[in-house]
């Protein structure tokens, strides 16, 4: 996983509520078996509209997505965060995120930052007013800073440590391989299992 500590960049304001993962990556693009290359499918339908914010030249090169409430609901498709990552995004800032989407972000080192409604609104307005506005997200200090907004955010300390160090979850879990072995030794034999095919 890619480590994250401090990031400064320009932002793309996606001023819509309840953006679901079917919008982030439409299902037709989920038939691929590759892990990479989903950037061109990001907001696959919406981007067909030339006026869609992602197509506006003033936001080209944005690395921070400003989102509305309940971003990333619906399907568990990790392709949604892969597409954001592949399109160059490192951070998503919004008032709230769907659970599975947030988890998926943490797995690949894309940082979801929850801020109060009014702070997201202020950032959104600032960026729409001046697309060159830079925002800094500091995971060490747990702070978001821009010209108009200086706000702290929360993240559980374990996830923060994992992100700062860029640690792989499977490696971390395998530290407890003995505990998994021990658990399996005492699992009830009546629990269902499928004979090896």
């Amino acid at each position: 996983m890619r480590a994250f500590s401090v990031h400064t960049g320009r932002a793309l304001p996606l001023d819509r509520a309840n953006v679901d993962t079917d919008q982030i990556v439409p299902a037709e693009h989920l038939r691929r078996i590759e892990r990479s290359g989903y950037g061109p499918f990001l907001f696959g339908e919406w981007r067909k509209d030339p006026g869609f914010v992602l197509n506006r030249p003033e936001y080209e090169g944005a690395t921070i997505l400003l989102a509305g409430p309940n971003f990333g609901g619906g399907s568990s498709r990790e392709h949604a965060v892969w597409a954001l990552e592949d399109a160059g995004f490192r951070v998503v800032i919004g008032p709230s995120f769907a659970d599975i989407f947030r988890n998926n972000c943490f797995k690949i080192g894309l940082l979801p930052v929850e801020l109060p409604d009014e702070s997201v609104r202020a950032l959104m307005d600032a960026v729409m007013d001046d697309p060159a506005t830079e925002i800094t997200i500091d995971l060490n200090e747990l702070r978001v800073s821009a010209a108009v907004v200086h706000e702290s955010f929360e993240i559980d300390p374990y996830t923060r440590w994992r992100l700062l160090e860029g640690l792989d979850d499977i490696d971390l879990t395998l530290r407890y391989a003995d505990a998994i072995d021990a658990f399996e030794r005492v699992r009830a034999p009546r629990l269902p299992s499928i004979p090896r095919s």
Partner: protein
Amino acid sequence: MIGPRTLAEKVWERHVVHRAEGEPDLLYVDLHLVHEVTSPQAFEGLRLAGRAVRRPDLTVATMDHNVPTVAGPVDPISRTQMETLARNCADAGITLFPTGDLGQGIVHVIGPQMGLTQPGLVIVCGDSHTSTHGAFGALAFGIGTSEVEHVLATQTLPQRTPKTMAVTVEGDLPAGVSAKDVILGIIARIGTGGGAGHVIEYRGGAIRSLSMEGRMTICNMSIEGGARAGMVAPDETTFAYLEGRPNAPSGADWEEALEDWRSLPTDDGAMFDSEVEIDASELRPHVSWGTNPAQTVTIDDVVPAPADEASARALAYMDLRPGTAIRDIRPDTVFIGSCTNSRIEDLREAAGVLDGHRVREGLRAMVVPGSMLVKQQAEREGLDRVFVAAGFEWRDAGCSMCLGMNPDQLTPGERCASTSNRNFEGRQGRGGRTHLVSPAVAAATAIAGHFATPEDLER
């Protein structure tokens, strides 16, 4: 001494492999369901890291999302994905129910059907509708592909303790109100993000009165209310459903299992982090009008005036005008299927409405059984003949028109009455317009040509 605990807390506690201050709990996974879409990158990740599948015997796979539901060629991209799953399962020794196999079907239909879904288990799958399995009193939730890889490698997942929410539905359900209407009513109340961070436990007399299939419909759509998992405490209905199924315990194991399962329901006095109460007697058949599953009204209502920019956008996408009676909206297509409503009881319900009627001329109607065994059972009961005589297409099992990644799709602007779970923009195909309904309303609508209940047909 341990105080009173909820069902979710009990199931959680018995699966903690490792617990340390400041770390998420490491939870053991009893059953990992796998399908073709969210697994290839996980298997590839294992290969790149030189890791093996730890417990192929606790893993089962099927093909459902991108399979065609009629005989014919499969597009090359989908075929590659299906072949990749077959190869990955063969290499790892994982049991796979591929297309053409009688065991094949939607992953959330075949697990319960095989008796693999049991009370007290932790069940995961790279699919958000894994919440379905919570109907048995299992803790079941959807995961992303990185987590699929993690479970394949370790049979565990690091998880933060969720909050608990009680949704209590008391009273008798009025005639014509189905499990689908109950969950749509719940989502309308709590909103699409209302259950975020929570495991929902559905409680109360109206839930207890539902069959296992009705409970599955309810738990299935927990994610549409933002909750990764929804649960119903196991009871005699649960046990009767499970007894005798292929992978259910038998003999002395059955007795031992029963005793264990009876200890799972939430203790009196256990506290939930939040509680919602719903009066069953006030529920009516629901129809969604917008582009998220909380945007619903009852069939007796009209399309609401937009409350904000998001609902104005939804109305524009759906090409609906405020004030239009729901019964005056005329779908082009009716779809009965999906992991929400494709089980035998759903098909019986719809066939019961359709018997002796014809689908309205010009309307396309299809029914897609959730599994090949459901299809076989329906054919034994003659339901296929009712559907075909009414003018429905009778298809093979799969996710079909629920999600727009196989050939069963809406065309731009096409309006569909669908028993599926999501009415997002383009969900059933680019530009398609989805109205979520129950199987009974879907069937009555197919006959009437506009949204209708079975009672409407008798008038």
